[in-house]
């Protein structure tokens, strides 16, 4: 641990700490002759304890006055986790319940459920680096990759704001990949896409995503918050219905993801419990070793320095209180 002083000039006073070693705090009392009397080990020990206590007290006081602090620093540690980007759908449909209505009474909207469960997930994952991005009509860079849980939780909370109408999955994904791009560590990379619907991805955007995904392996999880009665990921079009991305965007987005050749899983959730299960599943899957840095903050050690000084001074005070005079002061001089 490295230490620093706010006012290094006080170190000039440090030689004062030698004073107790040279002079004792007790009042010397004249005595005819001590030469003949052997030194007593207990007294010698106490003498040294008092001298060291004095030196310690002065040193600690000087360091305290100088503002002793431990320097902040970062250390690398290894744990289990991943670098996760939460890509959250902010389209207005997310503010509805799973039943597709505006929430009433005790009902929970899809975004509220997702928020609650995601926050839970973030809190349980200790060493993850989490970034947050949102998308509706256009993607929004909410929070860069960070390990500050409070920031992530706040970003997830910000999903609360009413969203816009459209769902632009393609550009959202591109943004999430960008966010992972800057990160060069060998940790596992995860993109969690939380949405309640899909949209057609432009052919050009599809190509760009394909290249981006090919460049670096990314685990993609799609948490599909399905509204009751709408087509699911695995819905097969009824005979006679057309099987196009425009008609069945979920089915085609899923097929696109599967075609990327990356580790991909889709979770279809129709109620908050299912969302919870899906998140627990993701949590279980993403357990690869990760090196993460832990920041040790700048630590104020003044208080401790003063506490040490207090201990030294109390020892000296006790010695002073235990001091006796051979000749009562009233008779002196």
């Amino acid at each position, binding site marked *: 641990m490295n230490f620093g002083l706010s006012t290094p000039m006080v170190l000039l006073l440090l030689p004062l700490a030698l004073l107790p070693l040279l002079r004792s705090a007790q009042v010397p009392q004249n005595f005819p*002759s001590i030469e003949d009397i052997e030194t007593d080990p207990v007294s010698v020990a106490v003498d040294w304890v008092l001298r060291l206590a004095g030196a310690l007290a002065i040193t600690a006081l000087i360091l305290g006055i100088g503002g002793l602090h431990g320097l902040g620093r970062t250390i690398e540690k290894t744990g289990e986790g991943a670098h996760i980007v939460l890509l959250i759908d902010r389209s207005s449909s997310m503010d509805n319940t799973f039943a597709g209505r505006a929430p009433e009474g005790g009902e929970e909207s899809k975004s509220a459920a997702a928020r609650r469960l995601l926050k839970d997930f973030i809190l349980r994952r200790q060493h993850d680096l989490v970034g947050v991005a949102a998308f509706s009509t256009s993607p929004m860079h909410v929070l860069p990759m960070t390990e500050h849980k409070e920031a992530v939780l706040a970003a997830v909370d910000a999903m609360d704001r009413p969203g816009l109408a459209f769902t632009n999955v393609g550009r959202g994904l591109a943004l999430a990949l960008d966010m992972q791009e800057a990160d060069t560590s060998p940790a596992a990379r995860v993109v969690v896409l939380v949405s309640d619907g899909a949209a057609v991805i432009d052919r050009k955007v599809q190509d760009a995503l394909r290249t981006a995904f090919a460049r670096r392996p990314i685990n993609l999880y799609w948490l599909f918050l399905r509204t009751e009665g709408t087509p699911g990921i695995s819905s097969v079009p009824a005979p006679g219905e057309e099987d196009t991305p425009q008609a069945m965007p979920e089915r085609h987005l899923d097929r696109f993801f599967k075609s990327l050749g990356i580790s991909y899983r889709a979770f279809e959730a129709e109620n908050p419990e299912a969302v919870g299960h899906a998140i627990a599943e993701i949590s279980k899957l993403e357990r690869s070793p990760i090196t993460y840095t832990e920041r040790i903050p700048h630590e104020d050690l003044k208080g401790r320095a003063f506490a040490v000084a207090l201990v030294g001074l109390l020892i000296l005070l006790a010695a002073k209180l235990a001091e006796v*005079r051979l000749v009562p002061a009233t008779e002196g001089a």
Partner: protein
Amino acid sequence: MTVAPPVDLPYQIIWRSRALRQGAHRSTQSGAGGLFRDLATLLEHRDPRRIDLRQTLRDPFGMLHVRRFEERSQIGVTLLLDVSGSMGFHGAARKMALAADLAQVFAAAARRAGDTFALYAADDQVHDALSVPPTRSRTGEETMLAALRAYVPKRKGASGLVEAAGKIGRKRSLVVIVSDFLLSEVQLEALFAALSGHDVVPIRVADTRESATLPSWGLFELADLETGRRRLVVMRPALKAEWQRRIEARRAFFRSLAARHGREPFEITDRIAWDRLGAHLAAGA
């Protein structure tokens, strides 16, 4: 505490002074006055005024016999005063004040008895400023006492006492040593050896605060008055007993050494018991 010193302290000797000068003490001189001592022929003692007719007539050879009497002579009184640092101890009393009181009384007593009085103050050397050469005069006595009362001992050692012993002279005299006798055994022996020709009255000045009334518990730092060395002491009953044992052992050594060289020492603790000192000196041994 300040008992006024008596004007006189009659001291006696059990030996005979060899001094020619008349005084108050028994002498080896024979003369015309005092106690009858023996008879001698007129040829031996040419004092026809003291012819003993009876003895002369009784002598078959017809020799003239003369009565001889003991003369009383003076003696020299010397006070050897230890002014080393340890005498600066101020406990229940000031050791130097006690020493000055003793000097005052001995000077007066010597003057009254017609003896010479000399004072040699010494630590590791003889202090001429404080010392008074042998004198019968009263002049300078006040100055001497004032100087003694004002003196603050600071130097270490008492080897000057041996040097001062050499200044006393060869004629047997009464030597009063006033000291705390915190000398090393070697120094003590040297001092008594140097004074072996004299009648030595050691007076040991002690203080209850340096031994008897030491606190049983407590912490204090002592500064040795001789060496200036400091030592922290955590006093407790066991250590106090140990200290007192050592101080007592030192005192016992001194007493046996003093007794071997003549007189039992007189000890002063905190205050001078003048009547006891008078009795001690009057006993003469």
